[in-house]
């Protein structure tokens, strides 16, 4: 009796749709650290215009300064404050990945679920996604820049496209698994239209894996964005992004190592933070 009750409770937790369960991920040590870093960096980025009302482009004669109270991160070759520029750069980087990754996940999920419309369509879509997998993210980004020119939009587009296959495959796996489950058969016998079955009885089961996947792609997105900017194909100066700062700083790496160091540290920090969040979500979602 007691054992069967605890079993029921446990399996119930798995099926329960409550958000509480995912929030539980943020009570684990990894989740707390990851979320705290994301929140602090996110707030700094969001409030950048308030914290630094002068903006990132104020020049001065003090070029390539080291660390000081006035300029905690030092200054660049035009005497611009690197802390200000780093935070404004972070703002752009976060803006790009926080829009591109969710869009990519949603589109990818839809593509993966297209197999529900017809078997053949699903197969064709998967082969299309295979082609995307064939291109490393940066190479794909460079191809897109060749066509569209440099700027933030190619970065955005590259992240969206490279994220599609993972989301598409994961959601297809869910579709194939759920399609033959009895609750879906039960809905079919009731005569529920196919689109409603997809929406109500299959799509909700993609949420767990997609949350984890999104957190993973945040990390990858950070690197794609920075990578394109470092080689000068991303966001164009004078607009700062972390990649742009790295690109600039590399030239002065011996005179002012702090120029590269701090933007790079921030970059690593976001990647680690999203990595932690992804881990925490994954462990929570797969806990039995």
């Amino acid at each position: 009796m007691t054992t069967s009750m605890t079993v029921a409770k446990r399996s119930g937790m798995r099926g329960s749709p409550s958000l509480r369960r995912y929030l539980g991920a943020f009570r684990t040590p990894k989740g707390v650290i990851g979320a705290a870093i994301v929140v602090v960096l996110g707030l700094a980025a969001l409030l950048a215009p308030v914290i630094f009302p002068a903006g990132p482009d104020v020049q001065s004669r003090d070029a390539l300064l080291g660390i000081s109270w006035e300029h905690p991160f030092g200054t660049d070759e035009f005497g611009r404050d690197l802390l200000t520029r780093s935070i404004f750069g972070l703002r752009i980087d976060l803006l790009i990945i926080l829009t591109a990754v969710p869009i990519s996940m949603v589109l990818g999920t839809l593509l993966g679920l297209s197999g529900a419309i017809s078997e053949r369509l699903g197969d064709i879509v998967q082969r299309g996604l295979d082609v995307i997998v064939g291109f490393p993210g940066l190479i794909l980004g460079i191809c897109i820049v060749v066509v569209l020119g440099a700027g933030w939009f190619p970065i955005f587009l590259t992240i969206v496209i490279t994220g599609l296959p993972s989301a598409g495959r994961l959601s297809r796996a869910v579709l194939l698994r759920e399609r033959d489950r009895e609750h879906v058969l039960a809905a079919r016998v009731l005569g529920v239209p196919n689109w409603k079955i997809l929406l109500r009885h299959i799509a909700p089961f993609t949420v767990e894996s997609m949350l984890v996947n999104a957190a993973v792609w945040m990390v990858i997105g950070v690197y794609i964005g920075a990578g394109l900017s470092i080689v000068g194909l991303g966001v164009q100066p004078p607009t700062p992004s972390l990649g742009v700062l790295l690109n600039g700083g590399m030239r002065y790496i011996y005179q002012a190592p702090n120029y590269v160091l701090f933007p790079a540290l921030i970059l690593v920090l976001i990647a680690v933070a999203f990595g932690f969040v992804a881990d925490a979500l994954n462990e929570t979602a797969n806990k039995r």
Partner: protein
Amino acid sequence: MIGTPEAPLLQARNLSVGFAGDRGAFTTVVDDVSFDIAAGGILGVVGESGSGKSVTARAVLRMLAPSASVTNGSVLFRGENLLEVSEARMRSLRGREMAMVFQDPQSTLNPVIRIGQQIEEVLRIHGADRTTARRRTLELLEQVGIADPERARRRYPHEFSGGMRQRVVIAIALANRPSLLIADEPTTALDVTVQAQVLDLLREMRKELGIAILLITHDMGVVADTCDDVLVMHRGRVVERGPVASVLTKPEDPYTSRLLAAIPDMSAPTRGSSSETDGRVLEVRDLRTVLGGTRRGGHVAVDGVSLSISRGETLGLVGESGCGKSSLSKTLVGLLPAASGTIRLHGADVTAMNAQDRRTLSDSVQYVFQDPLASLNPRRTIAQSLAEALETSGTVSEEPHERSVELLQRVGLPPDSLDRYPYAFSGGQRQRIGIARALAADPEVLILDEPVSALDVSIQAQVLDLLIELQEDLGLGYLFISHDLSVIRSISHRVMVMRAGRIVEEGSTDDLFDDPQEPYTKELLSSIPRLEHARKTTRSEKR
């Protein structure tokens, strides 16, 4: 217990086992259980799921889950307390002196290792050399009734049927000539005819080898058929014990009586024939279903089946696993395509199962699944699931809530069930919800696909009563599919016996059970473990 002169082989005294839960919680699942098994005796431990019977067996073998621990008691095996010996000693006892047979032979055997090798491995672990192991393997395979042991030795588990696999598992258990065999629901995953063979085998092994058997089961019929003594467990406690014959004929504990009463009695009167036979709702002619594509090479699961179901009538469909009964029912509701034949609903042909056909069909034919937990979307509340059924059937638009409450009351559930999720209910309650959902469309025929097979026997009886009541009130026609002959007998007006995709015999319940014509039907009927066996033997012994 029944006065054996020498000391019993196994003596469990005041055994208590508990599980550590979250935050220091501790649940006792086996509470003060004592029993004896004499050498060569068969003790049945019977109880419903969660009664602690499997945990008791595992405690004897010291194979409990890490979170479980024995809190009290002793287990004496030939005078040696198993709970105190070293792990090394225990390992040598397991497999040599005591062996275990599990419920599912499929998952007990390693799928990628040949049968012979799996048996030899056990022999060699306990010190046999290669040639002895080989010879003993052949001997064992022959002993458990596998024909042509030399060939069987080289085969893989998937090449064997469920019953053959369970024989192999028993052969492995017997490999080192143990004196005690613990069998945990050894026949639950098997068909009734195969079950009879495996039980025969166990009895034979006891007679020939003199091994003692601890047989765990939920099935009183199996106990009656096989055991000398029985221990009835309920919520971790022993509620009744004694020789099978006296427990079954004169149960002293109310729980035992309830268990016995819940078993459909094969001598009770049947429901007779249906009073209404006028309104034929569903008519099927020469239906064929081919699995694995419609092209050549598919498996013919349903092969020329014809049937009809009228309002107020139950047609029982009985057959063993793989006979095609589920494929048939799935074809009837369009979950599988029909290869040929016709399905008519009130005379209208719906075989093509286009959108219009499906709509007509789902208005009057609904389906209840075997596993109610799997057939309810775990992320949706009962209210949402019922609302979906109501909305889809188009029977109600303005007051779905009131209609849902009404449906729940029909199946005997309180209205506050609506806001809960499927996991919050017990198996029987979930099946009630499954039935309520099927009733939402106001159907004329329900297809019930093993609706009580996943439930404990006392719950089974309640759900069957509900179904009979609903049939009488609403005039529903049932196609009742089951592998369980006693369940079929208690609810059906007419019965069809299916084998290998074909209907082999058909008739009224009384005719079919009292005077079966086909050899297969006779074999099925004679395989059912019956309580009467035990009752009859006691009576004759007493005289």
